[in-house]
């Protein structure tokens, strides 16, 4: 049985629908990350699970019980807020213990539980300080401890690391991952940072303007993006995407007279208006003599240390490749690339959906079973 079940959930703000019918099942103990650009509705969805936002349509069930009409306190969720939302006038101890105090947990038990949680996130020395006297990372920990102390059925995280610096963020990521491993509580984590999403998630939910684009394990989402949006959004540098159509001669035509020999794909997607895409790291730099060599002209390069990104142009269409060779490339120099046909993704241009090799579009709500 799934822990959180979201069925046809909609959200309307003052007559504007911002979430258009979301269906997701979240298994018990899973760590699910909702990923999307700002304004895609990911936080709203999380807040609907929490009970901070009304559900305009559809239903949400937690542990098999429909919670649409329940108050936040009756849902068994705990939440970590983006700006932590610590009570500024209470000490760390009081902040963490507040939910227990409200729930009339006896004082002795309360103390013990606060202490236990504080130890788990190494906050013990700071219990009598106020939030203003803590560093960003420590406040973050208090926010987490406050969520943990109630031993909730579900943890909700609303972009909790967005106020931390890069280094601390990596550390907190590991900490959250470890906590999840040891507590095993179902968690829903909202972020717009794809690295955070990829590293934390058991499963990813990619959202865009109120729709779920794809649900799947991080590697599936990366390697089999279900839509143009996901292909473009996930991965850095972004996937190379180019618009065009396949001809009967087995060539893909794009840009200003560009031709790519892709006979297998051409057979499957004959004369369809499509976008094709390939990950930069799968574009290989080859010698001019290579049999499938595609000639390009370098625009510029970006040195990354271990490798470099080559920004180039093939018949007027831009392309990015990862080059780990040693010989440097200058602007305007000719360069040659090769790619395997099997690494190429094809997307229907009108629907924006994936048109896989068999030509069957993948539906957004398909949850790829693990």
């Amino acid at each position: 049985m799934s822990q959180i079940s979201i069925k046809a959930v909609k959200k309307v703000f003052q007559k504007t629908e911002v979430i258009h019918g979301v269906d997701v099942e979240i298994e018990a103990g899973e760590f699910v990350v909702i990923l999307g650009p700002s304004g895609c509705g990911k936080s709203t969805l999380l807040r609907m699970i929490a009970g901070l936002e009304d559900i305009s349509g559809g239903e949400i069930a937690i542990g098999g019980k429909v919670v649409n009409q329940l108050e936040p306190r009756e849902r068994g969720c705990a939440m970590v807020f983006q700006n932590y939302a610590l009570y500024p006038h209470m000490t760390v101890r009081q902040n963490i213990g507040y939910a227990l105090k409200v729930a009339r947990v006896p004082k002795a038990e309360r103390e013990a539980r606060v202490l236990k949680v504080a130890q788990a996130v190494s906050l013990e020395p700071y219990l009598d300080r106020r939030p203003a006297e803590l560093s960003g990372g420590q406040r973050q920990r208090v926010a987490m401890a406050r969520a943990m102390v109630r031993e909730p059925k579900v943890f909700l995280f609303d972009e909790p690391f967005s106020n931390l610096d890069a280094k601390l963020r990596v550390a907190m990521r590991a900490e959250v991952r470890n906590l999840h491993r040891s507590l095993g509580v179902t968690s829903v984590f909202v972020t717009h940072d794809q690295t955070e999403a990829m590293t934390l998630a058991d499963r990813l939910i990619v959202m865009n303007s109120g729709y779920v684009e794809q649900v799947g394990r991080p590697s599936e989402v990366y390697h089999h993006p279900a839509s143009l949006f996901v292909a473009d959004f996930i991965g850095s540098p972004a996937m190379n995407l180019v618009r065009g159509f396949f001809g009967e001669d087995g060539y893909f035509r794009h840009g200003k007279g560009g031709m790519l020999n892709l006979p297998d794909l051409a057979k499957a997607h004959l004369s369809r208006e499509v976008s094709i895409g390939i990950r930069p790291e799968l574009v290989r730099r080859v010698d001019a003599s290579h049999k499938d060599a595609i000639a390009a002209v370098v625009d510029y390069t970006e040195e990354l240390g271990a490798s470099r990104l080559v920004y180039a142009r093939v018949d007027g269409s831009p392309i990015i490749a990862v080059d780990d060779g040693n010989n440097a490339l200058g602007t305007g120099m000719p360069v040659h690339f090769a790619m395997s046909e099997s690494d190429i993704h094809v997307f229907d241009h009108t629907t924006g959906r994936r048109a896989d090799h068999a030509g069957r579009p993948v539906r957004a709500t398909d949850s790829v079973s693990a």
Partner: protein
Amino acid sequence: MIERSPFFDAVTYAVMIIGLAMVIFPFWVVIVAASQSLHEVSRVPIALWPSDQLWVNLAEAWDRGGLGTKMTNSFIVAVGVTVGKITLAAMSAFAIVFFTFRARMVCFWLIFITLMLPLEVRIVPTYAIAANALLPFQTILDTVGITWLVQQVSGFQIALNWNLLNSYTGLILPLVATATGTFLYRQFFMTIPDELAEASKMDGASAMRFFWDVLIPLSRTNMLALATIMFVSSWNQYLWPLLITTDRANFGTAVMQLRFLIPTMNGTPDWNVTMAGALIIMLPPLLVVALMQRWFVRGLISRDK
């Protein structure tokens, strides 16, 4: 700081000292006159240096003005207005800022329009209400026909009457009935981030719990600021107490009493006693302003802006 020339600094101090003299002169005159004997205070020109009669004059003013009772009354009124206003202001601002209900904006405007008209401006009609504070309700009952109905059914004539003349409630309630404090609280509540309320919801706290455990402790500074200005302004009320109190011996306030300490046309010009009385009466609010200046200034600025 730029332009630190010694000359400009000297000008600055000179202006500030002149200002100080201007501001402090009346206080000085009060203290000087209050410490002189009748003979000294009547001398022309007067010596602007304190003499040794301060305690005598203070005691005399205290007796003559009946200031024991009056100061107590003033305290009761000032504290009553302060506490009442803070309580009501916090409650209604909480309702207006944190609740959604249909009449919210109507209530907001109903309360805030009262900021427009100070008590002095509507003194005549407000005075009329003091004779029977329940008159509005009586009128409503009469108009709707409930009075008639009840009389027909039970033979009992509804006659609501609550006379506020010569009572603490009469002195206090009309001063509580304005929106200044509500406005201050509303401003403050608007700065509370949404997440704090949400976090408390997630922690299982009800609305009232959030009010008590989070909002009230957080607004302590504002409360103190509001308390200082409310205390000072209600202590200094003059026109309203003057009107509503006919039994001056028992319900008069200290500030009201000032007028009766002024020497009469043909009486002894014992200004020394008058000034001693003024000194006693102006002291409590002056202490509040001088000692709680930080809170006071903050409250003043956030209330009026």
